[in-house]
Structures are given as structure tokens and as C-alpha cells.
């Protein structure tokens, strides 16, 4: 069971969690990650842009990789694009498994990919100022831990 959506609209984490477990008695654990826009440093909004053809296929490939690495029973990835204000939800990753360890690891693996290597670009709005976010070093390190050279 796989759900993958890139959308401008908000999503409902509770409904997505319910859908992952619905009617499946083998699911014992669901780990859900919800990412929110932080209002650090006077941020007034973010605008997210992505490369649609590449985003879909790269995320799908990482879901497949997670399915190969861990015994998971379902995955939901929803990522918003467009203009988002502090406090708004930006991403949801939810993974269902029989046991908790696989669900935790697969969810963290997918989040590390999404936050570091997925083809998204962020523009930060501070009042009337706007700048493009730079790729971050510590995030690169986080992604590398799943694929040591």
C-alpha cells in the first residue's frame, strides 16, 4: 500500500494514519512524521518549488528502497509545494509495519532523503526580503548515514 502526493493543499495526518491501518490486522506499528514550517528568525513564509517529473520518480524509488530494506506494510508520503506560512504542515511521512523498529527506521530514512536530496528548492520570505535557501551540510551528513560509501 503506497500513497505519494505532491500538492499545494494541506493534509490530515490523522486520516492518513487511519487509512494506513484500516482493516489490516497485521499492522502493529505506525510511525508518522509531520513537518511544520518554523517561524525562526522572523520568517514570514516559504515558497517551495520542485521538479515534478523527477520528484515523483525519485520519491517512488526511495519508497521501493525502504520496502526492500525493511519489512514494511504501507507507506504514505505527502509533500506540499507553493507558499507556506510558519505553523503550517509541509510534509507527512507515515510507515506501517508489524513491529516498531522497521517503521521508525523506514520513516527516518524517507525523511532524511526528502529533507536533503529530493528536488525541492525553498525561497525564504522575511517581510519584503526574499532569498533562496542554501543546501545544508548537516542534512547531507544525515542522508549519507543510510548509504555509507
Amino acid at each position, binding site marked *: 500500500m503506497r500513497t505519494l502526493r505532491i500538492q499545494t493543499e494541506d493534509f490530515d495526518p490523522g486520516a492518513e494514519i487511519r487509512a494506513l491501518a484500516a482493516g489490516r490486522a497485521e499492522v502493529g506499528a505506525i510511525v508518522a512524521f509531520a*513537518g511544520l514550517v518554523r517561524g525562526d528568525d522572523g520568517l514570514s513564509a516559504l515558497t*517551495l*518549488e*520542485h*521538479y515534478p*517529473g*523527477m520528484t515523483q*520518480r525519485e520519491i517512488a524509488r526511495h519508497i521501493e528502497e525502504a520496502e526492500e530494506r525493511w519489512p514494511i506494510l504501507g507507506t504514505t508520503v505527502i*509533500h506540499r509545494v507553493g507558499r507556506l506560512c510558519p505553523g503550517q504542515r*509541509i*510534509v507527512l511521512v507515515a510507515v506501517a509495519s508489524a513491529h516498531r523498529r522497521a517503521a521508525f527506521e523506514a520513516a527516518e530514512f524517507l525523511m532524511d532523503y*526528502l*529533507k*536533503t*536530496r*529530493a*528536488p*525541492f*528548492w*525553498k*525561497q525564504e520570505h522575511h517581510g519584503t526580503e526574499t532569498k*533562496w*535557501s*542554501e*543546501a*545544508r551540510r548537516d*542534512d547531507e551528513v544525515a542522508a549519507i548515514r543510510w548509504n555509507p560509501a
Partner: protein
Amino acid sequence: MTLLYFAWVRQKTGLGEEHVALPSHVHTIAELMEFLRARGAGYADAFSDPGRLRAALNQEHAPFHAQLCDEDEVAFFPPVTGG
């Protein structure tokens, strides 16, 4: 071929997508960047420092020495920042 520009590359070129015929002397992404740089001030600015750019060929990350065909989709963008 289809060319796509994202983030500040799109802002500098002034467009997100365009279709161009692959010139016969352009065989690689590096040569394509050289060719594009000569198309006007916005392009010259966007492609002035290849070290700040990344490319994708047919929706896969690709090195600048990758070979091109006329039906290819090539995208230029800054390093991704993730979601």
C-alpha cells in the same frame, strides 16, 4: 530538446521551460551550458558559474559530461535544498 530551469536559474533566464533544437556542435551538458550562456544577459548570469549549478538528464541527476540527444529533457538548478 526540452530545457527546464528551477529556482534562481529560472528567475535569471526568465522562464521555466523552453524547447530548442540541439545545435550540431553541442554534445554534452557542459557544451549546452556554454551554448546557453551566449543567448543573452539573463542566461549569461545564470550560467556564469557552473560550480553553483546541477543538472538532470531525463529526470535523473547527471554529470556535466553526459552526452545529449535532441529528444532529451535537460534541467538546470542550484543544489537541491530538500523539502
